[in-house]
């Protein structure tokens, strides 16, 4: 499930183990598209049916960027399950992202 209406999530009760991922991007530059495709790929591999990706364009929605103090884009924020994790960059080092999101072997 991928939505671009930002920050509406969290109101709805979710099942335990459901991943809520917010991806902050700036427009449709190469880093943005690359980050999104990398993230989709990762979720397909590890989180089938139990993830939500919200994309937020900081150029259009600067309030959200202010609220989350997003200075660097792309920035991926794992909102749930806790603890919260922030990953900067276009997510091209997949193994590093897996580890950070606690998706490494055994977690999938």
């Amino acid at each position: 499930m991928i939505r671009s209406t930002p920050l509406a999530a969290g109101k709805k009760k979710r099942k335990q183990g459901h991943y809520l991922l917010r991806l902050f991007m700036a427009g449709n530059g190469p880093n943005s598209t690359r980050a999104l495709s990398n993230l989709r790929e990762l979720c397909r591999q590890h989180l089938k049916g139990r993830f939500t990706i919200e994309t937020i364009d900081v150029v259009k929605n600067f309030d959200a960027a202010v609220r989350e103090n997003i200075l660097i884009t792309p920035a991926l924020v794992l909102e749930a399950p806790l603890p919260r994790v922030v990953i900067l960059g276009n997510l091209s080092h997949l193994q590093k992202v897996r580890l950070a999101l606690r998706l490494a072997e055994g977690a999938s």
Partner: protein
Amino acid sequence: MRVKGRAIPKVPTQIAGLDEVLEGGLPRGRTTLASGGPGSGKTVLGLEFLCSGAMSGEPGVFVALEERAEAVRQNALSMGWDLAALEKAGKVAIVEARMFGEEVVSGDFDIHGLLAIVGGHIKRIKARRVVMDALDVLLRIFNDPRRERNELYRLHEWLIDRGLTNVLTAKAHREGDVASQYEFLDFMADCVIRLDHRVIGQVATRRLRVVKYRGSGFGTNEYPYVIGRHGIVLFPLTKAELAHQPLGPKVSTGLAGLDAMLDGGLRSSSCILITGSSGTGKTTLASTFVQAACRRGEKVLYLSFEESKEAMITAMQSAGVDLGPALRSKRLVVQTALPEAMGSDDHLIRALDAIAAFKPSHVTVDAISACIRMGSEQAAFDYLMRLVSILKERGITCILTNQINPMDGSDEELSGIGFSSVVDAVIQLRFVEIGAEINRQMLIVKSRGSAHSNRRQSYVITSRGIEFPDHPQPPLARVFRTGRKGGAN
């Protein structure tokens, strides 16, 4: 065809003295880099630029890359700038853009997020100015010189595209040069200002230098500055010399005999140097003038570096000069300080504060020879040259005393620490041995814009003050008066 060069548009900083050095201000719609070591005042400079803009119709965004927004507000408040109020009024926005270092990094990234945030605030308050404080902190996250450069040029372009006048600050080594990996900052910026905080002769001093300014002239010297109670204060010498007030009418010295030697008295708004060895009566002569001025209802500021106020008043009483009435009528203010108590810049700002508050007609510095103890001969020179220039600019009479060593009382010493050009009149006091007696003699060495006696005049210091046993003669040379320096009187 050659087109006559047009001055580039500038934005006044309203930082005291800086606009003179920058010949009007910072380049409008361009980038200025302010670099300096810790405690050099980069942030203060940025804040002052932002606040003066906010209060004169140019809102601004402050991007704090290192400090918390609350710390920036407190820092500003200590200088008397209420950022919180300006924020509320929509004239200032503070963006706290600190990296936390806990983030995982995977792959390429850029600073579009920051630009989006800053851009949002710019739109909201219609900002015309942007200050980015501690840019080096932002650049550090890229950890790659090529990337740092690219992102910085992107930032620079982004700011320029929006027509923003911006100040970027960056840390520098102690000598004031930016770290070599950030050298490109210097190339990119249109105006580069170095702030340097160093210690000379155990006294901390601050120096500002403009390294470059595309499309504009600028003062090329190093200028001393202090971070005062209301921001940065610079002491440029360049313009002061051009703005001196003409010498004013003659005023009495308080001694009829000396007035006669000076063809009527001393010119007001001039700089008078009283020079002599210890015990010749320099302070007595200066105090006599002070007493006479206060009796006429004029105000005098007495800067004493030699002794306490009480000691001076008592000593003068025994020499027949009672300054008590002048003090009580508040026409005389005595400001005392040990020269080594602070740096020459701090001494200067203290004197200027007193001058601004008290608005005296005359200022006495007793003694300039003690000023060397402010740190060095250079420090004393800086202090006196700037003080005298500012006094002359405001048409305030300036009486300096200078203690010389009788063993080498050469002509060089007459003008004190080598600034004879700003001294308009020199009165030399000295001891002479006549037979078995030691006597005192007074000589007018120079008196611009006035005839003066060329005779050495004997005088004595009695309990009634300075007295001339032989009645001094008015100058013989009246007919030779050249009229130079507007000498007609």
